[in-house]
């Protein structure tokens, strides 16, 4: 069971996770990560841009690597693009496996790669003294550090 999607509208993670879990009978464990737009002070909205010819194929390539590296029964990888407000889900990754270590590590691996090696660009609309303004988010050093963990293994 492999379900990879880019969505341009609000989604409800449990509406995807429950059928995904049902679709992998016999599993030992399911690990899921849901990322939401955080309520950082002053942040009014977040916009994720993508480049269609690269972004979805890149997510499929990532899924191929995940299935090659971990012993999985299923992988759900859903990412929002477009305009979002705090509290809205941005990303949902769920991995079903016979053993918990594969499920947890597969989700961890996907998230690290989606955060710093997938074709998304993010900007935030922040309240300021002269009204709200959009600011592009630069890649964070922590994200590159997280990604590098997998190369040493």
């Amino acid at each position, binding site marked *: 069971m492999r379900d990879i999607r880019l969505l341009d509208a609000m989604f409800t993670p449990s509406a995807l996770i429950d059928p995904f879990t049902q679709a992998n009978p016999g599993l030992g464990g399911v690990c899921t990560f849901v*990322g939401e737009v955080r309520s950082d002070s002053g942040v009014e909205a977040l916009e*994720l*841009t993508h*480049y269609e*010819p*690269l972004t979805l194929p890149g997510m499929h390539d990532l899924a191929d690597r995940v299935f090659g590296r971990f012993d999985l029964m299923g992988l759900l990888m859903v*990412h929002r693009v477009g305009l979002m407000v705090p509290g809205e889900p*941005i*990303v949902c990754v769920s991995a079903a496996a016979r053993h918990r270590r594969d499920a947890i590590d597969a989700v961890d691996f996907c*998230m690290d790669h*989606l*955060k*710093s*090696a*997938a*074709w*998304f*660009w*993010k*900007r935030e609309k922040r309240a300021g003294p002269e009204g709200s303004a959009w600011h*592009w*988010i*630069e*890649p*964070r050093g922590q*994200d590159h550090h997280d990604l590098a963990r997998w190369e040493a293994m």
Partner: protein
Amino acid sequence: MITVVLLGKLADLGGAPTLWVELTGSGPLDWAGLKAALPEALAAEAEDPRIRVAVNGALVADKIALQAGDGDEIALLPPVSGG
């Protein structure tokens, strides 16, 4: 006509998410030709080695060796900032 797609903050530097460049010479557009056709601030930024280039949805290994013809789509891709 060549379509130039600008991602992330490059869209701000270019003034729009998409620009169009006319082919002037008889041959394909190369890296120097592309930069000459872009707004100055964007052309300068495009030199950043972290900025990748794709032609028709395929990443170019070495952007200096870019070659694009009529109807092609060039994308300028700054460092990604994650999901």
